[in-house]
């Protein structure tokens, strides 16, 4: 089903402002992982060691769980780079998001927002560029409303890859990323897989045989 879709070879470069929506509320963990990965990628490209802020509302934390530092670490986000901002209401979260972005103190900020208005997203875009930070709006549900986000993603969960040792166990995590809208009109559908060595996400090479993309895996296979 998925392999029938076209799969471009590379993901678009990180933009200053992206929207990451979970295809369904239960995919929020996958969406969060994807957003963290995009934020880290952007920071790594620029050799930026500033912290990454996560702005959540109390309601989101109660409903979807709170960030677990050790889990984030396995995605490449170290404890010492995490800044968690908790707001009581969405309006406060929006304010904190904008303030964090334009402060210039963070490499990227992930903000959990349900329904930011178009004007609000425009402001976030400006704030992100002013503070040289990446802005990622994290939404629990996709929505077709207007947004100033340069890239809009829709993230779903996918059955994990085959575990190298135990066929009954979940293997490296996989998720699907649909580029629903972008400024330059490109769309696409990607399947990403968590590298079991680095913990980072990467494009899954194929559905049946994982690991062909990375050279070191090949070497291991031969050895």
């Amino acid at each position, binding site marked *: 089903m998925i392999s029938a879709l076209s799969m471009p070879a590379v993901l678009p470069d990180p933009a200053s402002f992206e929207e990451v929506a979970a295809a369904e509320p*239960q*995919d*929020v*963990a*996958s969406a*969060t*992982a*994807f957003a963290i990965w995009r934020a880290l990628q952007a920071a790594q490209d620029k050799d930026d*060691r*500033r*912290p990454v802020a996560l702005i959540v509302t109390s309601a989101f934390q109660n409903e*979807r*769980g*709170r*960030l*677990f*530092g*050790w*889990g*984030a*670490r*396995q*995605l490449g986000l170290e*404890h*010492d*780079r*995490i*800044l*968690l*901002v*908790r*707001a*009581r209401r969405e309006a*406060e979260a929006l*304010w*904190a998001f904008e*303030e*964090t972005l334009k*402060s*210039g*103190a*963070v490499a990227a900020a992930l903000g959990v927002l349900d329904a930011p208005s178009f004007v609000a997203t425009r402001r976030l875009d400006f704030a992100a560029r002013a503070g040289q930070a990446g802005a990622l709006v994290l939404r629990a549900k996709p929505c077709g409303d207007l947004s100033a986000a340069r890239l809009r993603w829709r993230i*779903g*969960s*996918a*059955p*994990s890859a085959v*575990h190298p040792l*135990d066929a*009954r*166990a*979940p*293997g490296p*995590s*996989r*998720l699907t990323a649909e580029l629903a809208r972008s400024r330059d009109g490109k769309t696409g559908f990607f399947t990403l897989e*968590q590298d079991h060595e680095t913990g980072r996400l990467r494009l899954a090479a194929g559905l049946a045989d994982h690991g062909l993309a990375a050279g070191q895996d090949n070497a291991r296979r031969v050895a």
Partner: protein
Amino acid sequence: MTLHAVNDAAKRFGLRRGQSHADARAIAPGLASAPAEPAEEARALEALALWFERFSPLVAVDGAEGLFLDMTGAAHLFGGEEALLREILVRLEAAGIKACVALADTPGAAWALARYSQRRMSLAPAGGARDAIANLQVEALRLDEAAVRLLARFGLQRIGDLYNLPRAGLARRFRGQEGLALVRRLDQALGVEAEPLTPQRPPPDYRAWQVLAEPIIDRDGVAFALPPLAQALALQLERDGQGARMLALDAFRTDGRVVRLKAGLSAPSRSPAHLLRLLKEKGLETLDLGFGADALMLTALAAEPLAGAQTELAGDVRLAASDNLLAGLIDRLEAKLGEGAVRRPQGVESHLPERSERWLPAGPRPPEPICADPGRPRPLLLFDPPEPVEAIAELPDSAPSRFVWRRAAHRVAKAQGPERLSPEWWRPSPAQGPHRTRDYYAVEDDVGRRFWLFRDGLYNREDLDRPPHWWIHGVWA
């Protein structure tokens, strides 16, 4: 029942404090009375003490109805001692408070003059306390009743009568504690013995002060008056190489109350712009100015050494600069969202997931980790506390094959586990019973969503008082 306080009208009938209520009713049948509220009075007096910080940083509450102000070296700020006393009276009058004021070299003499001189305002010139109180009754020395009665028996009625008596004899005549108390009170009033005051609030080291010609009634007025205050405070801090960690803005209202706005800083700072912004974020409009405030005070309640800015020699210059930006950001967020709204994680020595990290209030520098990675895969989002699930699993210790969480059924396609975590028996056991072992399973349902489930309790070993139960503790990416 006795009278606790009387107003002017009652005084005209000859009523006085301490009189029994029945007697008072007999003298003045139309007497209106209400039960005394000593606790409320004490609170009002404490509030008034804070308001008096506009005259002196050292204000002490004295008993149930008095205040001491240490005005040493400060009277000239108010146009001299007499002008100061008059200003206090006028301001209290405006706030509807009747008071008597006295200024003297010692707290004891001032106490005596304020209460027993029969005047609203008394002033003992420097070095003149001895003469000023000589004609007052001995009660004015803050003596207890027994001592006063004894003095009356000896015919000693005025404080001046005691001056010429030999001190040793005086102390001996009043045997025990009373004699000592009498001599001590006399010495305190005359300044022979020191009497330290306990201030209501510790006087701050750094404070900037602004009296306004016209009372301000809204936040715009405060915002307008603030910048010079912040500048002044910053100068004081810079002189001593300090930075503020806790900031307070006090507005002195015309009705004799003080309202305060406090803001904490995650790192010491003395940049006026930052201090101003912080107070504005905190919400100047939350200051209840009532009918107006005519003085503002900005204090650094806590200060820490702050060396002049220096970029790190070896470190990343950009990183050092971002530390400052980060401190500013954290302060602004916490001022608006509340204390502890910004946090950073710290790994902690514990294998129980919910205890393996702590979220500490954020500072510009990340907290030092206490332990390393648990070394096992961990989910990205954690439910704390865990949520119960209904699971179907093979006994005694297999992964569940189905489970229901939040009324949605999940069929397990892949599972890994158990990862067995034994309880921390050295900690107090949970309310529902003894500690139990947890078996954690990473499971994936047929759609590809990954959950972290655990079973609390082992079958046949820990299920005596309640059966093992399944919980969800987290979700994976």
